[in-house]
Each structure stands twice: as C-alpha cells, then as structure tokens.
C-alpha cells in the first residue's frame, strides 16, 4: 500500500495541532458565507480594507493578545484569571497619565481648556505605554510570586488579583471614568494601515513571544514543567523561574490588551474593560488544543482559537441573536468544541479515516 504524497500531506495536516482550530474557523466562516449576505465582501477606502471579516480580526486582537500569554501559563499547568482585571488597571494607569486633571476636582482654569483637546496629553505617549506595561508586568510578577514561590494553586492565587484588580483600577482614577481625548492614543485600537493596527500589534507580539520560547529552551522547559514538574526539577530545570516568567508575560499581554481596549472605547472604564474576558482567553487556548492540564502548546493555534471565538460572536450579532442570548450560544459552542476534542470522538474519527485508508 503505497501512499501518495497527497494523502501523506493530508495525514500530516490532519494530525497537526492547527487542524481542529482551523476546521472550526472554516466551518463558522462557511456558515456565515451562506447565511449572511455580503459576508466576505471587502471595501477599499483610502487604501485601507474594511469588511466583516476584517472586523472579526480587529475585534479578535484583544483576545489574541491575551491568549498568547494565557497559552504559556496554561502550558505550565496553571491558569490566570486576573487578565481582565489587569486590563482594567492598565487602562486606568494609561488614562490618568494622559489626563490627570480629571481627578483633581478643583481644576486650574488654564488646564481646563485643554480638557477636550485631541492633541493634549499630560505625559508623552511613550511614557504612558512604558509605565502602563511596567505596571502590568508587576501584576504578572505578583501572580507569579504567589504561584511559584508561595505555592498557592494558580486558580486561587490569580483569583486574588481578579477580584482586587478592578478595585485597584478604580482607586487609581479615584472612582472616575476618565475620557481619553488624545488622538494618537486612539490609533492603538482604531488605527488602520491597510489592515487594523491592533492586528499588526497582535501578530508582532506573537512573533516576539514565539521567538522567545521556540528559539531558546524556554518553550521546552515550559512544556516539561507542565507535563511533569517533579521530573523537570530532577532534570535541573528551575521551575520557579519558569513560572515567574510565564505569569509576567501573561501580565504584559494583559497590559497590551488593556491599551487596545481602552483606546477602542476612549475611556478607562474600570468596571467594563476586560469584563469576563479571561474566559474567552482561556477558551481560545482550549480551542487551540492546549490541554488545561499543561504540556504541549501552540501559540498559533491559540491565536486561531481567539479568531474562532470572535467569529462566533460577530456572526451571532449579524444573524440577529440578541446580546443577552449570546452567552448561551457561546456556551453551546464551547460544549461542541470540547466534545470534538474528547478522546472517544477523536478515536472515532481516526477509525473512520483508517477504514477509508484500508479500503483505498
């Protein structure tokens, strides 16, 4: 039985980690194409591309960024529930740096006039971004310290910041929702250079993290710690440092996501920014095929997972599912995905393809 190179390629592809996420994405897009008129149509305005598919990718960029960090954390056998709260903290820090006057109740009249000026910022943009990401890294380091050094279970350890984080975000802005008028900042989430700027951001981050984990030994150590922490320790791997690193990266990703989100809505809304988004990030990783128990991971598959989630959300809105029913539909899709990933179902499909191969 000589296999042709085509069937060999198919074999290789179907056993690849990207197969299931891509299949899910393709399935949703095909259904969209059938039920939603002009779904795939793309307009060109001033050389930039617009359309539903572009929208999906732009809206997915926040979850994509989060999923990158979350993938590494989950690969070590952990979880980070605090990413949504860290996003809120990041948004507050960024907003207050650009517009600190809003919390001082007695505003000097000479500053007052700048309030709504789209060209005014108190701190320069690079400073805003640097400090915000630094704060996000500190948040990640806090989680990492709890999990790696205090040996608190990740779910409990990160729950602390998940709950406290939004309070901290409120404290930073003195409980006020700060409007962001500064126009260049809006470019992060709303800018366009042929494709949405936030999408480039997500893919650049993907590239950097991929280089960091796959072109060094870090990726293998992360997987090793996730599969068997004891044996990893006995093999000389410093488990604590690895865990610190992944939580710090996850915090950093949450910070970037916070910048994107606040730039999108032009406020620091501590109550709503990143609300329940940690679940989307975790789901994206799961759809990407990384086991919640830790171990083998694929960053690209998680990125596709994030797109799957956003595609579902956007299609539901387009079909006319009311916002309040969306969570239920999402839940149903999750069940479906997890069902497809379950061992018996996979075995069934494997058997099916095996039989075909025998017949041929």
């Amino acid at each position, binding site marked *: 039985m000589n296999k042709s190179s085509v069937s060999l390629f198919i074999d290789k592809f179907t056993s690849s980690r990207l197969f299931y996420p891509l299949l899910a994405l393709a399935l949703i897009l095909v259904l969209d194409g059938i039920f939603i008129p002009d779904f795939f149509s793309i307009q060109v305005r001033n050389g930039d591309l617009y359309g539903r598919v572009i929208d999906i990718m732009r809206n997915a960029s926040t979850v994509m960024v989060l999923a990158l960090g979350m993938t590494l954390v989950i690969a070590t056998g952990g979880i980070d529930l605090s990413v949504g709260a860290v996003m809120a903290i990041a948004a507050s820090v960024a907003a207050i740096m650009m517009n600190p006057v809003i919390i001082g109740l007695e505003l000097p009249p000479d500053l007052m006039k700048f309030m709504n000026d789209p060209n005014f910022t108190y701190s320069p943009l690079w400073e805003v971004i640097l400090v915000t990401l630094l704060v996000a890294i500190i948040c990640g380091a806090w989680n990492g310290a709890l999990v790696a050094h205090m040996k608190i279970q990740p779910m409990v350890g990160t729950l602390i910041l998940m709950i406290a984080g939004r309070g901290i975000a409120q404290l930073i802005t003195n409980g006020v929702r700060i409007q962001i008028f500064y126009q260049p900042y809006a470019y992060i989430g709303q800018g366009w250079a042929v494709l949405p700027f936030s999408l480039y951001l997500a893919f650049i981050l993907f590239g950097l993290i991929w280089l960091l984990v796959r*072109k*060094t*030994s*870090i990726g*293998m*150590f992360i*997987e*090793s710690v996730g*599969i*068997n922490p*004891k*044996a*990893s*320790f*006995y*093999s*000389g*791997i*410093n488990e604590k440092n690895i865990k610190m690193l992944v939580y710090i990266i996850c915090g950093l990703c949450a910070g970037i996501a916070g910048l994107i989100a606040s730039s999108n809505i032009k406020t620091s809304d501590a109550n709503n920014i990143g609300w329940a988004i940690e679940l989307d990030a975790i789901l994206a990783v799961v759809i990407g095929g990384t086991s919640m128990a830790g*171990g*083998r991971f694929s960053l690209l598959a998680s990125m596709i997972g994030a797109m799957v989630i956003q595609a579902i959300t956007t299609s539901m809105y387009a079909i006319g599912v009311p916002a309040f029913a969306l969570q239920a539909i999402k839940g149903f899709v999750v069940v479906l995905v997890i069902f497809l990933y379950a061992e018996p179902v996979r075995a069934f499909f*494997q058997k099916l393809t*095996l039989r075909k191969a025998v017949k041929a």
Partner: protein
Amino acid sequence: MKEKKAESLLIEMRGITKVFPGVKALDNVDFNLRYGEIHALLGGNGAGKSTLIKVLTGVEKPDSGKIFLMGHEVTIRSPRHAQELGISTVYQEVNLCPNLSVAENILIGRQPMIRGCIDWKEMNSQAAGILKRILGIDIDVTQLLGSYSVAIQQMVAIARALEIESAKVLILDEPTSSLTTNETEQLFSVMRKLKSENVGIIFITHFLDQVYEVSDRITVIRNGKLISCDDTASLSKMDLIIKMIGRTIADLDEMVKIKNKTTRNVGKENVLKATDFGRMDWVEPMDLNLHDREVLGLAGLVGSGRTETALLLFGVDSPDSGSLEVGNRKIRKYSPNNSIHQGIALSPEDRKAAGIIDDLTVRENIILALQAGRGWFKHLNSKNQTQIADKFIKLLDISTPTAEQLVRNLSGGNQQKVILARWLAINPRVLILDEPTRGIDVGTKAEIQKLVLTLAEEGKSVIFISSELEEVMRCSHRISVLSDKKKIAEFSGQVDEHVLLETMAGSG
C-alpha cells in the same frame, strides 16, 4: 468428561488479537487459568503481557477472540464489570489515592455507614483487621497512604483487591518489584493461602527466582505471540530465559570478566566525599566516599535510606548536617541544577513520577538535563539536539522508530534507557543509579548491568542502588549497607551473599 475439563478451567482466553495503530499487540493468543493455581505470565517489555491483562480486566476490548469464565463465555465491558465477575487486579504502578487514609483506600465505596454517615471508627478497625488478617502487617490505617513507602502502598493495593469478596481471579502485575525479601515472602504465603482456597492467581514478574518459588505453570509471550505454556517443574531456568528473549543472554562469565578487569582501574582518589552528611527524617549523618572509576553499591531493605541518600547527594534538598565534596570542592548550593554543573547525575527510583517527561519526545527527554545545565538562552539548535539524541539511541540501543517519538510510547526498559541517556549526555563524573533495572526485562537488565561496568571503565564513578542483592554484588566493587536510615557496614572485594543478608537484617 469433556464438560469436566471445561469446568476445571477458571479462565480460558482463546485466540485473543488486539491491534493498536501500527502495532499488533496480541496475535491470536491463548491463555488459561485453573482453579487454585498460580500461573506466571512472562515476557520481555512490550511483549504483550500488559495488554493481555488489560483485555482480561476490561480496560481494552479485544479485536477478536473469546473469553470463558468458569465455562461460560463472557464479554468484559469495563474494569468495573471485571471486578463484578470476580477478577481483581493489582497493577504494577500503585493506583490508589495517596491523599486518602489507608483505611479509606481499602474500603472506598464500601465504607461502613451509621445513620447515613461514615462510621470512621468501624472503618478504621475493619481496615486494620483486613491488613492484619490478610497480610499480617500492622500499620496506622488513619495515616495518609502517601506517607507510607511504595512497598506498604503495594500491600494496601493487594489487600484492597483481595477484600473484594467474590474475587475468584487475582491478577498481580509485578507486585514484588518494590517489596523486600521479607515482604515478598509474606506475599507468597498469602498467595499460597489463596491458592488453597481455590483462587486462581495470575502472577506477572521479572524475578525468575520468584516464578520458580511460587508458580505452578508458566506462560511465555513474546512480540504479542504465545510462545509456550509449561508446568514450572518441567521447565529449566535456562530454557525459560531462552524462550523469553529468543536468544541466550550475555552470560555471567562475561560480567565477571569485565568486573575483574575494571577492579584494577579503581583509583585511590575520592571523586565524591560526604562527611557526617545527613538530614533529619531522611538519613542519619554518615560518611561516604566514592573513588575514581568505582562502582559503589548501596544495599539495604526498602526504607533503609538508600533512596534518601541518593536524593541528598544529588541535592534535591539541603542536608542539615555535614558537608559534601565533589572533586575536592565543597558543595555550597544544593539543587539538581547545581549538581548538573558539578557533574553529578541521578537516575531516580520512580521512573514515571520523577524520571520521564512522557509527552515530550525521546530527543527532548535526552537533551533535557544538558539544556537545563546550559540555561534558557544557550540553546542547542535542533541539528545538535538530533545528533546527541541519535548518538545515545544508537549507543544504548534504544528501540524507537525515531528520536521524535513521544517517550510515553516506549516500553519501560527503553524509557529507562532514555533517562540514562539524559544523564550520560551531561557527561557526569558521578552517576547515581537508583533501581535502574526495576520493572524491566531480563535482556535489558543485563545490558544495563554491563553498561554500569563499562562506564566505570571509561572513567565514571557510579553509585548503584538495587533491591536485587545479586545485581548489586555483580556490579559493585564495594558495597555500603544501610539499615534503618543509617549506614551500618561496608564491604569490598568478594562478598558472601549470606554475610551481606545477615548484615542487612541484623540491626533491623
């Protein structure tokens, strides 16, 4: 007459075939078990023993073949169903809950109840009674199972299997691999007692002496095929080994020759020197030294402190007394990572929990310690990694299709070789091997023993730990004996087995 014959068989398996993707694990295998018989099931690693047992216990469904239980054809649907039919198993790796107490582990699912609540007092006394009655051991059943040694855990697993009242068939999958001589004897007397009560026992082990001591018949499986089924009395040990491995093993003479040759090489210089070295609850302070090109055996019963000594030397935790010098340099920081830099390697006792990373490839497992020593950023590129992996796959004769195979798909013996490769890859000065031959087949065992001596010849120093005294004696130039977490004696040159045994038992 014909009916009578069928009735005298407790279990009959006919033409069992099981195919896994790419492997024919069982090929038309017949097997039967009589009432009141101890039937040894033998074969090398990956021969198909475990698969046959899994078919019998409902873990795997056979692709073809029939199973008769007491003359009636049965389809075993699940492990639970197998238990209901009276087939109980104690697996090779203890699969109980270390977080529950001993009593809970024995009686889980059958806890005595009082007014809708668990009657703890009754449960504990029942469990203690069961252990005493069946195995004759007396331990605190309210302690967590995980706080006991592997040996005790194994005993608890056996007690649990036996406690299932209707057990007609008891399957013991390498029950003795972590037991001491005494405990093994205890187990055998239990087995004989059950045999006299007409229970059929399937006994899987790698210890051939034990097979001859206790079994009535021997079935040999190799490469998924039935090789033979003989009465134990009519099968010589040599014939049995030939059947199991398909060739005669490198004989003892050669080992002796190598050992004598390497004995001359043993240097005077201390490669490793521990002074007053110990840790509370692990081992009492001891002096231990290891010479250049020497194999030092650590002998002792399970729980005597052999493993703890190995872990402490490797720096898994810090000692609270004494000091350790490696090559005349004092160790200041105790961690596995630092040990790698000092050239100390440890192949741990518990291969599954502390050794292999089962979802990583053979290549990744082999280069893991080397890479951990180099750190995050001095990354070996994939070409280098493959070169190193392929070198050791060839050197140790690891049977795997490619270096990219996941380690979980390898047999126990090959996994052990992968761990050896991991440590040889860092080119250590001191190699600590804790039970490197446990649970692996006769052929591989001999290979590893020979490897130990070859390594010493090539300039490495080895600390060799094994529960098999014969093996320790065969490989070591010098033997330290531990008992009750203390080093109590040291022998060099020719040692008499009986003297050694008496020393081990003496102060215990």
